[in-house]
C-alpha cells in the first residue's frame, strides 16, 4: 500500500483502541518508537489544538492527530510541545482532561514535512485498515 505526500497531509483514517493517552496511542498502536516521538516529533495537534503534555492528553473517537518536526518562525515555534514560547498560543492549547471513551474507534492521522518520509512507510506496516 502506498500513501501519497498529499494524502498524508490530509490524513489517513486508522482504526484504534481508545481510552488511552496520546502517548500510549501513538507508541503502542501505530508503533511510533518512543525515542523518536520524544526527540523528533516536536509539534502535535489534537483536533486542531497544539498539545503540550502527551501523557495527560486523551484521545476520543473521531480525533484528528497531526504530527510535525520542529517548526520555524515565531508562530511555528510557538506550536512546539512545552516550548519556550508556547504561551503565545495558550488560548488554543489542547486540554488534558481524560475522555470517557473505550473500545474501538477511528482517528485521522496526518503527517507533515520530514515525518512523511521518515515515518510514513513504518506506520503503514502497523496499520490494519486505512481510508
Amino acid at each position, binding site marked *: 500500500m502506498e500513501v501519497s505526500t498529499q494524502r498524508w497531509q490530509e490524513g489517513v483514517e486508522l482504526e484504534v483502541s481508545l481510552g488511552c493517552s496520546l502517548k500510549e496511542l501513538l507508541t503502542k498502536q501505530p508503533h511510533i518508537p518512543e525515542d523518536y516521538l520524544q526527540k523528533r516529533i516536536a*509539534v502535535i*495537534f489534537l483536533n*486542531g489544538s497544539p498539545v503540550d503534555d502527551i501523557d495527560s492528553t486523551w484521545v476520543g473517537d473521531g480525533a484528528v492527530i497531526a504530527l510535525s518536526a*520542529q517548526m520555524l518562525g515565531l*508562530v511555528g*515555534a510557538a506550536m512546539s510541545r512545552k516550548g519556550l514560547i508556547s504561551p*503565545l498560543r495558550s488560548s*488554543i492549547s489542547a486540554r488534558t482532561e481524560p475522555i470517557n471513551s473505550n473500545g474501538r474507534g477511528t482517528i485521522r492521522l496526518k503527517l507533515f*514535512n520530514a515525518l512523511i518520509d521518515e515515518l510514513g512507510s513504518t506506520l503503514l506496516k502497523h496499520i490494519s485498515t486505512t481510508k
Partner: protein
Amino acid sequence: MEKILRINMSGEKGPEVKETPLGDYAGLGGRAMTSAIISKEVPPLCHPLGTENKLVIAPGLLSGTAGAMSGRISVGCKSPLTGGIKEANAGGQPAQVLARLGYAAIVLEGKPKTNDLYKVIINKDGVKIEVDNSLRGLPNYDLVAKMRSQYGDKIACISIGTAGEMKLAAASVACTDTELRPTRHAGRGGVGAVMGSKQVKVIVLDDTGMKVRQPKDPEAFKDANKRFIEGLTKHPVTGQGLPAYGTNILTNIINEAGAYPTYNFKDGKFAGASKISGETQAELEVKRGGVATHGCHRGCVIRCSGIFHDKDGKYLTKQPEYETVWAHGGNCGIDDLDMIAQLDFWDDNYGLDTIEMGATIAVAMEAGLAKFGDAKAALDLVHEVGKGTHLGRILGSGAAVTAKVFGIERAPVVKGQAMPAYDPRAVQGIGVTYATSTMGADHTAGYAIATNILKCGGFVDPLSTEGQIDLSRNLQIATAAIDSTGMCLFIAFALLDQPETFQALLDMLNSFYGLNLTADSVTELGKKVLKMEREFNEKAGFTKEHDRLPSYFKTEPISPHNITFKIKDEDLDKVFNW
C-alpha cells in the same frame, strides 16, 4: 565598509555624489544603520515622497566577508504606507557586492528638479549617475535583462519596477539573486515608492576587482564561522526543514492550528491547504526539473529558497515564500500553486510587496471586485496595478486604502500595513507584536526566538497577559538586534536551541572587528534601535492609540477556535516599558 555614499538628487546640475566617513554611524549595520540615519536626519513630519525623506540602503556588519548567512540588505526610510519609520530587508547578492565595494550605506537624498529617470553604476572605479529615460516603464525582469546586456553578468542590481515608478505605497525594492533575477524584495512599507520619488530606477553594483573583506583576526574568524555553519547545519529547522521545504513548510502547521487567515481573515482554516503546502510545492518543483533547495545569495548555508518551473518545465519564478503562498493563496481562497506562482512572478516583476498585494486582493474580493477563489481575476487585479490604471493605483496603495475606497470594514492592518499570515486571535502573542511594532503589522518584528539566549528579561508568568506582553517585548528586542547585524533572521532558530551557535556568531563579529561583544551588548543594541524608532514615530504623530489591532478582531470570533483578541489596550501600552 568605512564610508557612506550619499547621492543628493536635488543638485542644481543634477545628482551630486559625496562620500562621507562613518562618524556617529560607525559599528552599525543593517536595520541599526538605516534607523539611525532616518531618525537622526529625516524630519519625522516630512512627506514620505518629498525632498526631505531619505532612502538608506545598508548591508549587514559581516556582508562581503566569508561569513555564512551575511547577505541580508536593509532598506530604510519614512514609510509612505505607515507614515512611520520603516526598515524592510531582503536577501540576494547586493549586500555582499555593496560591502565589498566598501560602502556601509547608500543614502539617496533630495529629489530631482526634472522628470528624468536615473541609473546609478557603482564599481571599483567609482560612482556614475546617468539619465536613462529608456528605462521608464520597464518591469524588473526586463530592466535587469537590459542592465545585464549593458554591464555583463557579474553585476548585482537594486531596482524598482513600474509600481515604484508610480510611487505606490505597496511598491518594493528588488534585489537580484545568484542567477541575476530580481526575485528578492525589500517588500514592506512602500520602500520602492520612496526610491521612485528619488527617480532612481536601478543601482547597478559590480565588485569585479574587489576582494573579500578581511577580518582583524583571520584564524579566529575562520574558526567561528566553521562553528556557526556546523550549528546551522545540525539544527532540525535550519539544517533540514528549511532546506527541504522552504518557508512554506509552515502552511500545514499554521492551518492545522486554526491560525491561517482565510477569505480575508474570516476563517482560520483553509480546505485547500495541502494543495499549496511546502511539502506539495517541493515535490512539484523537483518533478518539473526545478529546484527545491537553493540559496538566495552566495554564502547561504540554509538554502530555504528554490526555483519554480511551469507545467512545461520552464522557469516561472523563484520558490514562492510562505507569506506569498498564504497572501495570494488561502487568504484569497486560491488553492492552485501554478496561479500563485504566476502572482508571485508578477508581483516581483512590477515590484510589489506580496503580503500587501495578497491582503489587498482579499479585501477587493470581499468588496465584490472578484470572487474568492478566482485566481485569474486575482492576476488581472495585479496587472491593473502594474499598468497603473485608476483601479490599479487604488489597489497598489494597499489594503487599508482599498478597504476605505470600497467601504469595507474588515481591513486587516495596523498603522496602515497589512497583517501577515498568522491570525492574532488564534495566536494572541503575535497580536501583541502586530499592534506594537514600530513597523506596522509585521511578523518579523518578533521573529527572533532567542529570548533565553539574549536574556532580554525574564518571564513574569507566561500564561498571563503580562507574560504575553513581556514575551513580545523580548522578541522585538532580539529581532531588532539580529536585524542590526544584517544576518539572515532564520539563524534565530539555531541560536535559540544551541548557545554554542550564538556564541559562534558573537565570535565572528568580535574576531572580524576586534570587539568584545557579549549577549548583553547585543541586547542593548536591539533596545537602542527600538528606542530610536519609537521616538521617530512619536514625533511623526503616532500615539498609543496607533498600537492597536482593528476593533473587529475584538468582536468577531474566528473559527475553528471561535475566539477573539483578548489582550487589553492598557496591557499593550506596557510593551515598551523597560
